[in-house]
């Protein structure tokens, strides 16, 4: 049977508004699974590549399931009750930050520009985007369901409102005209020692952007916890633990940079450069990115607990040492690199807590 004849049975040419709506629905039925599969494949690949980190995260969630699952649900139920404008703004910001690093994949990846040339209505495009966003927001949906159970029927309208707000913000973030991060980094007036590495990282805006955002988010969480603990001993312990976690999150950058250097490594060896040139460049890059969350925490403690600054000075040296040391397990640890990095970071956290609390 000719291919077109096969299609003809499936897709009658629309002759009325009703049939046009049916045709739109048919396109949705054909295209939505393809978009979802693309998103699932790309996300699956990221999870597989980061399986050790995901395993650790999974163990953490299983160990502290009630706290980890119920805390955000309670927070959402509180926000749904209204009145906390700052909290709602924070949720909207988080929703946008979640989407930004993966917007290329969420928009349909390589097919998106071609799909843009097809005669599909704006409403169908929004419907397709919402379908993928709802799948991407599966964890949020779970938390909203828990919040609905916690808050009961009075909370439901508010929770639906939060979901609508999140989706609206994410839709906007999906289509916000943003400059290409590669061009941005290329234009930054950076020293040559750092610029090629930052350009190499900018080639992976989704994964690197997520890592950087996670480190900043972790620092913000630690600052909030420190405030809640009134900057007592627990506050410093949390800060140290979070810095260890940030080090673990950033350690994978060594692997990305090592792979990026592969084509040029031999050529660089022919130039009058130190044999440790690439090592130095990589260390400086990770230290630079690691310094942002560290400074956030140091400034927060400095403002609200100036007495803690001396400990932070000591911690700065130890933290730099951790970031440098993490290169070894990541590049030499083979398939267990992430596990070894986690053990190193955990060991460092224990020693650092003992040091700053002494």
């Amino acid at each position, binding site marked *: 049977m*000719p*291919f*077109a*004849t096969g*299609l*003809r049975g*499936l*897709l009658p*040419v*629309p002759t009325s508004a009703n049939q*046009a709506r049916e*045709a*739109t629905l*048919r*396109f949705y039925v*054909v*295209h939505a699974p*393809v978009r979802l*599969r*693309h998103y699932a*494949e790309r996300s699956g690949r990221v999870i597989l590549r980061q399986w050790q980190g995901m395993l650790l995260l999974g163990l953490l969630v299983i160990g502290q399931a009630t706290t980890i699952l119920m805390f955000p649900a309670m927070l959402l139920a509180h926000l749904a009750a209204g009145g906390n404008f700052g909290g709602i703004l924070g949720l909207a910001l988080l929703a946008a930050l979640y989407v930004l690093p993966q917007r290329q994949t969420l928009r349909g*990846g*390589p*097919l998106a*520009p*071609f*799909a*843009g*040339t*097809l*005669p*599909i*209505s704006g409403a169908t495009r929004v419907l397709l985007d919402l379908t993928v966003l709802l799948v991407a927001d599966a964890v949020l949906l779970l938390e909203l369901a828990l919040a609905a159970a916690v808050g009961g029927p009075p909370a439901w309208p508010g929770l639906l409102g939060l979901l609508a707000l999140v989706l609206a913000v994410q839709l906007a973030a999906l289509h916000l005209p943003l*400059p*290409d991060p590669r*061009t941005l980094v290329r234009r930054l007036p950076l020293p040559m020692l750092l610029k090629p590495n930052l350009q190499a990282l900018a080639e992976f805006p989704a994964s690197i952007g997520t890592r950087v955002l996670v480190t900043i988010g972790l620092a913000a969480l630690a600052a909030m916890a420190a405030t809640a603990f009134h900057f007592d001993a627990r506050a410093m312990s949390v800060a140290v633990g979070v810095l260890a976690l940030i080090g673990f999150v950033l350690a994978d950058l060594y692997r990305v940079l090592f792979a990026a250097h592969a084509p040029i490594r031999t050529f660089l060896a022919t130039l009058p450069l130190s044999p440790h040139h690439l090592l130095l460049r990589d260390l400086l890059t990770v230290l630079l990115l690691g310094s942002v969350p560290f400074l956030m925490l140091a400034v927060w403690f400095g403002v609200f607990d100036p007495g803690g600054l001396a400990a932070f000075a000591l911690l700065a040296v130890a933290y730099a040492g951790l970031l440098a040391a993490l290169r070894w397990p990541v590049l030499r640890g083979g398939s267990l690199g992430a596990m070894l990095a986690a053990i190193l970071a955990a060991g460092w956290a224990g020693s650092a807590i003992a040091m700053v609390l002494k």
Partner: protein
Amino acid sequence: MTLLAAHDLAAAYDGRRIFSGVSFDLGPGIYALTGRNGSGKSTLLRLLAGAQRPAKGHISVAGRDLARDPIAARLLLSYAPDESPAYPFMTGGEFLHMVAAAKSTTAGPIVDSLIAAFALASSLGERVDMLSLGTRKKLLLAAAWIGTPEVILLDEPSNALDGASRDALVARIGVDSARAVILFASHEADFVADTGATVIAFDDLASAA
């Protein structure tokens, strides 16, 4: 009768101007866009197809403004990019099905004839990432004839095609030249000559950045 009109088009990428001042009116016929590598031919085709927004200017397809009436305009145009935009996991048939569904139509007998001429039938069930470069190109070309496009934009259509498929494409372009604008970018002088296309030198058309 003007089917494809561009007025004062400009393209930019991240604030860097690629070209500007492109204006033309094209009636039914075959047009070959030629020029040096990197001059902006593919960018111009992307703009005309609606795959990229122009930094400035207007495009109309058979009297429909591409920006103001995008669906009506896109119903009347087809675009085959230089590289396959299909997901690697899609089959060739799924890709054609998707394009046909977007145009609310069937693939039609012309697509059937192209599938036969390109010997594409056996590849329609294969994943796109398993197809050769030439087969992927044939798939994009077959998709360009889905519906009743009055403007067909092809980016390097003869790249990677075998002789028989290239001849079939030349013949197909010839058949439709009386009713549609077929504008393609090409570096292959023989292909341009075989189609009998009117040559448009990109450098004469645009003010470079």
